[in-house]
């Protein structure tokens, strides 16, 4: 399905841009984008809401907006995946806002962040994740739990790819620093 590198789960950016351009008038091109991103967007939403029915509705809304935007030529063709995640995240926030006081992506991202930390089998690493500031955990969650690349995560968080890379680096460094005393203690 994906004309991306074999052995990697990323769609080649050139290919993605070509498909977005073609999708304005070519249903098959949009279908390829849909096939690639549907499981990612659905999983992203589901991990935040833990409700299959709602996840389906919000995923459908996200792709509906994507199709409309692409056809209206209003989509700025830099990172389609990042744009999709941004739309999906907004849909999640909108949904949560209706049912609770949580109103920001940061807040709605705490559940998957906690789930990710819980899923880590390595005890020291899990404990260290739990002690990280939320901003670092969010970056690590988007990168490693949701499997977003720097373009996608940057678009989602409203920052550049480079800024996200810096944030990610800081988060990993912070994680190392949190774990270092434990390593010393163990020694």
């Amino acid at each position, binding site marked *: *399905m994906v*004309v*991306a*590198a*074999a*052995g*990697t789960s*990323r769609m*080649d950016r*050139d*290919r993605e841009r070509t498909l977005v351009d073609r999708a304005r008038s*070519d*249903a*098959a*091109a*949009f*279908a*390829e984008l*849909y*096939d690639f991103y*549907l*499981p990612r967007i*659905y*999983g992203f939403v*589901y*991990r935040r809401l*833990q409700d*299959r029915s709602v*996840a*389906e*509705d919000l*995923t*459908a*809304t996200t*792709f*509906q907006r994507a*199709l*409309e935007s692409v*056809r209206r030529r209003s989509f700025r063709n830099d990172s389609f995946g990042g744009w999709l995640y941004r739309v999906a995240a907004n849909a999640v926030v909108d949904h949560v806002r209706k049912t609770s006081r949580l109103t920001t992506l940061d807040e709605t991202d705490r559940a998957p962040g906690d*789930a*990710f930390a819980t*899923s*880590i*089998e*390595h005890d020291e*690493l899990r404990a260290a994740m739990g002690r990280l500031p939320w901003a670092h955990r969010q970056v*690590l969650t988007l*990168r*490693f*739990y*949701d*499997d977003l690349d720097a373009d996608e995560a940057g678009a989602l968080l409203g920052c550049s790819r480079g800024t996200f*890379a810096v944030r*990610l*680096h800081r988060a*990993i*460094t912070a*994680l*190392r620093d949190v*774990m270092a005393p434990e390593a010393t203690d163990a020694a």
Partner: protein
Amino acid sequence: MLLDPREHELAQDLADAGDRARSADPDARPNPNFAAALREELLASGKPALRFGWARTVRRLVPVVAGLVLLVAGIAAGRNLYLAVGDHATPTPHPTATPKPTPHPTATATADSSASVSPSPSPTPEPSGDPAPVPVPVPTPVPTPVLGSLSLVATGCPGGVVLDWSMYGGTAAFNHYTTLRNLTADIPLAYPPQGGAVDPGGTYTTVLAKSSAVDIGADPGVTSYYRAMAFDAANNVIAASSVASAVAQSVGSLGALAVAAGDPGMTQLTWSIFGGPGGCFTWYKLVYSETNPDPSYLGGDSYLAAVGNQAVGSYVSAALVSGHTYYLRVQVIRATDLGAFIVAQTDVATYLVP
């Protein structure tokens, strides 16, 4: 991102944990029926119909409204139809009186041992034996399917064979394409492959408009024969190409990659241009890694640039950071609708940015 070994190890641990967590939660994967239905609706009209979101509420109300209509109609007719509606106004199931037609005669029965396409395959003969004891509703007559034709061009390249076929334009219910390979020109119109033909993989697609793929499994220097086919959902061949042949070659070498400092903050890469046919070229990918001494575009390593002009043999980058050591390589990539492969590449250059 520049990570020391400990940080790199932590990142790998987190990536592994993420992989495990995602794969361990089946609910985080979309239901195939949902995925297919949404896909169909988006592509058909651009607007999801009565399956999602608010529309689902409307759908739930339909049986209630229908019940009320029946009730009113019953009263108007002087009958106590409300009893038929039931105590809980359960909607009456939709009748399913329409008999389903028997399956289409299969087109796969005719094995084509030549390189040409049989235009009118014989339908599968009716099985002999006792007649069915129960009367069967007479189905709507199904016209005998006519086997459509596809064109196919196979281009032998260093690293693989590019397969380009024409889009199916017939009236049968298209389901997918697959191209088969054989060491002889005998490729029967059937799936699973028969007569020594094999499915090389990488050519299957359910997208009608996708019409190119790559076979990287053909032995270099050996003539391989191919036939592209379109199938319906029951794996019946609905269209096929003539047999085309091609000879793949080994992945080419572009020799050494020269890397040197340019203007301040700039790094210049120079390589020998790819002299093969244009049909085997899509981009030069200038791949690099700080950690992988054997960087490759198909391996997921990053690239500085994709150069789409085959005649270009140099590039100046501002992306490499002073004081860091990089592994760099230029790869010639041929991309198709269904995959890409490495046609030729330079040696890996190790470069410390001054």
